[in-house]
């Protein structure tokens, strides 16, 4: 009966209760969504790093990572491969050769890391092959009598392999992509010109478009104007096994885009057999064995197992290779916790405030109830339940709204394309799929209930302290 009365009391002042419930709903939603967005960003970054850059665990000679010494190759590679493949939890392995090099095109040169892979083997540990930009070539699928290199989009831009052109066809596709006529008109003078680099193109864009137009459509125009100089070549220079400078001419096999400028600028992939031959290291030469495991949660155990199996080698997992990733993950977790605490605290103040008002308004009625025989425990329970109901209704509504919106946005993601460059410069994709784990959801629900209960204690104690004779005399 007390609970029923409490529930009815919640709806006594409908407007006020709805305002409280709505603010709880919005607060919870804002909190969960922001956390989802951060988690999504983080997850995608970690996934991208694992799937395209480092995988889970890497093995190499003890000092190899310190100075990338060409001579520190692994021996008895076949035997080691077999041993690792047979370990529990291992999904795939790949052998890579890593050589420091200088990449040159006709106009520019830059220092890079040259990675020799066996494409068929590497595909199983990484999904870099999925990151090749359509129309730029392929992932070493094409037979060629030349040496082939897969370069990153940002390196290609830097080396002027990518250029920018606006043709009538480009204008048409821009039109169908929703760029307004007045903007297209302003672009007219740029049609059929050739821009050797992004910088030059943007410079000209700035001349023709207003700042506002540039902000709104610049990214899209750039994506459409982007073209690739087919059969481009680049020269790669490095040292061979006798420390003699060597190198070769490489055809661009394709351009990959993993939304991480830093990585793209510094990693060029070539076929391992080509690199083995050019360096003279021999057909078995491998610097790294890279291990992909089935379940990321098992990283630690499998790393330990590998360390036991290969005490002479350096065995490092993704968290150790990229401590910034691990740190970011744990920082985001802490940040999320702080964020939720702030939101729950705000929720709590809202409830305390409302319930204090309720107790004040109902002083006379509460006095009457104590007078006719409602004991302290029941008065306490009633006021407590009212606030718990308030927070529960708001909390549940917040959870439902969050779940629905998360489900919707998780399918298609949210595109922050106007800020894409900033995101990608830091290795984050600008297209974010917010994610929230079920554990987080359950924790938040529990926390809302606890917050509701805790914040109702004070008003309920206030109600207990009422003296019936005084309460009845109040006007």
């Amino acid at each position: 009966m007390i609970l029923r009365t409490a529930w009815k009391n919640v709806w006594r002042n409908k407007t006020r209760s709805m305002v409280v419930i709505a603010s709880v709903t919005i607060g919870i939603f804002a909190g969960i969504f922001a956390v989802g967005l951060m988690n999504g960003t983080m997850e995608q970054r970690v996934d991208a790093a694992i799937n395209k850059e480092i995988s889970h665990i890497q093995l190499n000679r003890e000092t190899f990572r310190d100075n990338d010494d060409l001579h520190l190759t692994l021996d008895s590679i076949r035997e080691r491969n077999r041993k690792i493949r047979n370990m529990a939890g291992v999904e795939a392995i790949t052998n890579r050769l890593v050589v420091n090099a200088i990449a040159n095109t006709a106009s520019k040169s830059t220092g890079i890391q040259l990675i020799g892979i066996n494409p068929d083997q590497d595909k199983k540990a990484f999904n870099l092959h999925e990151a090749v930009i359509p129309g730029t070539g392929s992932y070493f699928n094409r037979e060629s009598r030349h040496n082939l290199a897969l370069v990153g989009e940002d390196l290609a831009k830097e080396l002027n392999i990518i250029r920018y052109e606006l043709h009538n066809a480009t204008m048409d596709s821009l039109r169908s992509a929703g760029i307004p006529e007045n903007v297209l008109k302003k672009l007219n003078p740029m049609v059929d010109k050739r821009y050797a680099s992004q910088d030059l193109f943007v410079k000209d864009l700035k001349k023709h478009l207003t700042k506002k137009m540039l902000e709104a459509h610049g990214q899209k125009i750039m994506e459409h104007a982007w073209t690739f100089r087919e059969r481009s070549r680049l020269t790669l220079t490095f040292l061979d096994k006798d420390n003699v400078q060597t190198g070769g001419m490489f055809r661009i096999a394709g351009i990959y885009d993993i939304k991480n400028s830093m990585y793209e600028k510094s990693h060029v992939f070539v076929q391992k057999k080509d690199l083995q031959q050019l360096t003279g290291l021999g057909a078995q030469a491998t610097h790294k064995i890279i291990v992909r495991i089935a379940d990321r949660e098992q990283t630690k155990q499998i790393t330990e197992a590998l360390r036991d199996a290969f005490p002479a080698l350096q065995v490092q997992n993704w968290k150790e290779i990229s401590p910034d990733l691990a740190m970011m993950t744990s920082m985001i977790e802490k940040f999320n916790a702080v964020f939720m605490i702030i939101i729950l605290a705000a929720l709590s103040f809202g409830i305390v405030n409302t319930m204090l008002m309720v107790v004040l308004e109902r002083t006379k009625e509460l006095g009457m109830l104590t007078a006719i025989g409602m004991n302290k425990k029941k008065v306490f329970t009633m006021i407590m339940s009212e606030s718990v109901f308030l927070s529960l209704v708001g909390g549940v509504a917040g959870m439902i709204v969050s779940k629905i919106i998360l489900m919707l946005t998780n399918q298609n993601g949210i595109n922050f394309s106007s800020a894409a460059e900033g995101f990608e410069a830091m290795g984050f994709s600008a297209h974010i799929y917010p994610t929230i784990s079920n554990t987080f959801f359950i924790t938040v629900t529990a926390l809302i209930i606890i917050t509701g209960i805790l914040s109702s204690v004070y008003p309920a104690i206030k109600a207990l302290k009422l003296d019936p004779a005084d309460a009845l005399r109040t006007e």
Partner: protein
Amino acid sequence: MKVLELHNVHKIYNGSEVNVHAVNGITIDFEEGEFSAIVGPSGSGKTTLLNMIGGLDSPTEGKILVDNTDLSTLKTSDLIDFRMWNIGFVFQSYNLIPVLTAKENVEFIMNLQKRPKKERDQRTMEMLKAVGLGDRANSRPAKLSGGQQQRVAVARALASKPKFILADEPSANLDSKSTETLLDIMEELNREEKITFIFSTHDNRVIKKARRVVTIEDGKVISDENKQ
């Protein structure tokens, strides 16, 4: 049989400037089945007296026995229980819980008393009929007139089977017609069911209906008149 005895009861409120001697040495008994009015001008101490009788406030000095129980011997929590079982209250206003129907309000104390549902249902309807509101059982207080609300309060007080019913100016907010109906119902319940009523008032029409009139002034009984 005495249901209520007061022995030299005083109540002094310690104000910031002056101490108010609201009840100043009252000794009085009430018998079972009485229909008594406590009358006196505003500020004479009626509410203070009734609050002490009802165990809502404690005397500064003196003793109050309800059905031979000294109220001062009860702990706060026991006192609440004692009130629930022994004393029925009707206040001037704010008697009812606005979110509950008339029926639920009447049932409320019986619910606190944990009486079985069957008894509750039966008694609730009985009491609502007794106060002439059998057809308004499902109305919320806001849909009832002031007089009807007071009658629901009387029905609720009765339903819990108390030793007596205390009513502090039950008709203060009512028009004369409602006042008459309310008093008639109370009188009838007193006559037929032997319910003891003690109520305060300064309304002459109400005083006329009382069988005993206790007049107080400045916290003292100045006359105690039995009209039987």
